[in-house]
């Protein structure tokens, strides 16, 4: 008997079953209480509400949603807006963060202390302040629609947002995109061939020139041609505001700017830490091998720094995604605002709505994590 109790495998199994049973029991208890309480209060439950007409206007749309669409479509519009904001903010934050991180390491005292000062100020302020600050700053800085700043007389910037023309047909753009894709693929094939040949014969090839033509030149020409060939819906000032075109609302601009400038301060520290983590001997060895400063940075420092940087960068990217929920505070129609704000109020079904919202954030977050883990594995492999 005592041998049985003291058997390690038996004890292990006991603890695992006991802990899981306790957790499952607790959840079951919560669910039972909730359904009891809700039934008693006469609150509707279930997911039928998703099919109901929403009746809500959204000021910023990338989907085919209209107020006559269902609440499910409303949810999707919110998800798309959240992902758009998060994606653009992540790209901008990365660029800005790298610039700031490198500036902090600059030999120039003024530049490095300015970058350091920015990082210290921003990192110690709640992100909500930042979002509110940007919002009121953006609106205050821009003129009303009648005094809008025209950009080549086709786009207009005012406190109602940036109004840009929209194409009335998309055929030419599809063709341009296809041409660009083929051209970019050609550069990669060419690069592979050049590497192969260099390994065999040692002969070089002006890859930068071909890259400039194939990656930048061809798509530029293709899209320019497409722009010229497409009929446009140009915004015109009529009454209160510009009609026609697509409006990039100030809430969008403010939210992206706030998230990007906030995350950039954290990314700058990650970049600085990553670069400082590369041992000095590596640099000296690379220089001793006769590599130029650009090559040292590209071939030695960045690959090794990236390995240190990717995991913390991932969590910063996830923070940007999660912080995009603060769009609710400034009226940007992202997931939190349209779903936990508007839809919750129409339906009153708090439990279902919050469960859906949390699930969506988790799924997007897991997707971002998976992508970054894949990239991390790749970076880690390269340096081995």
């Amino acid at each position: 008997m005592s041998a049985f109790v003291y058997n390690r495998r038996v004890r292990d199994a006991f603890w695992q079953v006991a802990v899981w049973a306790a957790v499952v029991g607790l959840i079951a208890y919560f669910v039972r209480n909730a359904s009891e309480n809700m039934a008693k209060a006469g609150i509707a439950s279930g997911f039928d509400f998703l099919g109901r007409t929403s009746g809500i206007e959204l000021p910023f749309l990338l989907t085919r949603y209209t107020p006559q669409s269902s609440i499910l479509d409303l949810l999707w519009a919110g998800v798309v807006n959240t992902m758009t904001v998060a994606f653009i903010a992540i790209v901008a934050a990365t660029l800005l963060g790298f610039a700031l991180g490198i500036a902090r390491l600059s030999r120039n005292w003024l530049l490095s202390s300015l970058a350091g000062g920015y990082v210290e100020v921003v990192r110690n302020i709640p992100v909500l302040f930042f979002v509110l600050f940007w919002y009121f700053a953006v609106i205050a800085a821009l003129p009303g629609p009648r005094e809008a700043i025209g950009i080549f007389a086709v786009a207009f910037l005012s406190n109602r947002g940036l109004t840009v023309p929209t194409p009335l047909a998309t055929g030419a753009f599809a063709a341009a995109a296809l041409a660009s894709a083929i051209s970019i693929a050609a550069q990669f094939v060419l690069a592979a061939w050049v590497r192969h040949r260099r390994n065999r014969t040692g002969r070089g090839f002006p890859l930068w020139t071909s890259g400039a033509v194939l990656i930048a030149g061809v798509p530029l020409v293709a899209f320019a041609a497409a722009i010229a060939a497409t009929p446009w819906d140009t915004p015109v000032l009529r009454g209160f505001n510009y009609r026609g075109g697509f409006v990039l609302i100030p809430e969008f601009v403010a939210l992206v700017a706030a998230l990007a400038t906030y995350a950039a301060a954290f990314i700058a520290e990650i970049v600085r830490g990553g670069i400082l983590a590369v041992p000095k001997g590596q640099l000296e060895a690379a220089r001793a091998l006769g590599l130029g400063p650009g090559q040292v940075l590209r071939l030695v420092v960045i690959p090794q720094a990236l390995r240190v940087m990717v995991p913390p960068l991932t969590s910063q990217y996830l923070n940007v995604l999660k912080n995009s929920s603060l769009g609710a505070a400034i009226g940007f129609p992202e997931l939190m605002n349209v779903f936990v704000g508007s839809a919750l109020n129409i339906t009153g079904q708090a439990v279902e709505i919050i469960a859906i919202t949390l699930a969506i954030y988790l799924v997007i977050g897991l997707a971002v994590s998976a992508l970054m883990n894949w990239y991390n594995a790749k970076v880690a492999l390269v340096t081995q």
Partner: protein
Amino acid sequence: MTNRVTSLLRFARRRLFATPLDAVITLVCCWALARIAEPLLRWLVIDATFRGATRADCTGAGACWVFIRARFGQFVYGFYPIDQRWRVDLVAVLVIACTALLAVKRLPHRGALAAGLAVVMPPLVLFLFYGGFGLPVVETRDWGGLMLTLFIAIYAGLLAVPLGIVLALGRQSRLPAIRTLAVMFIEFWRGVPIIAVIFLASLILPLIVPSGIGVDRLARAVIGLALVVAAYMAEAVRGGLQAIPKGQSEAATALGLRYPAATVLIVLPQALRIALPAMTNEFIALLKNTSLVLIVSILDLLGVAQAALADPAWVGMTLEAYVFAGSIYWLLCFALSRASLRLERRAALR
């Protein structure tokens, strides 16, 4: 004197004007700094109004700090009854005194004293704030401002640390089922926005407890925040646990200690010391995130500031309120991050 001048000149040549590019960068930075600093200084100080009692006294083009002065009590105490505010002051004095006491390195039994205070202080502070046993009760709905911000951060932190340690141990556990559970819990709370969690806690908590039991509004927000912070704390503690060589726990086992004893006596004390800077950083993040409780109408520092803005007697004070509240957050977080940096350096020296 000349010595100082030459060293200054040498500094400028080396660190500001080393190359033509450097010189350009320096000049651009100077120009940008001037462009930003001038209007900022004007608004904050030069054109600002400091004296007066009402909005009419603010005639300058700059900030109206009169507003902050008039509302200062509310920014600090919220709607805490004026004749009871001494209790909050007393708590502040107590906390500062305890911190100062523990900062004395030569203090005998410093560790035991710290542990004792950590046990005694939270209930004592709760009693002083809330009342009962002779003190008039001040309900949590009357708490607010800076006092509430600090209360939420500290109590959510106190709940989160033990939970985080348990989760970190669970994640490092040998038993796969327990590891899975810990990972699921941690990743769930780390994966969702805090504002959604605060909503969740405030709307769902009353539903999942048996009917008839109320959960205080403030307690709900604290619990919601604590769950998220526990997940982050767990990751910080895990970092510390991973830094402890396996030989430590193996040696403890060889000495005849069982898992709980080996963990509590040998592994955790070392791991927590290493994890302390990371945990402090999580606490800073928590302090900043308390500002999100205003989404469920709890009037923390930012919430009180916003409530004050709705007063018709003080319209248009948005910037003043935000700048003031923001600076307080900044001061607190900056001080803490410096402390965390010092801890880190001290740990590195060992």
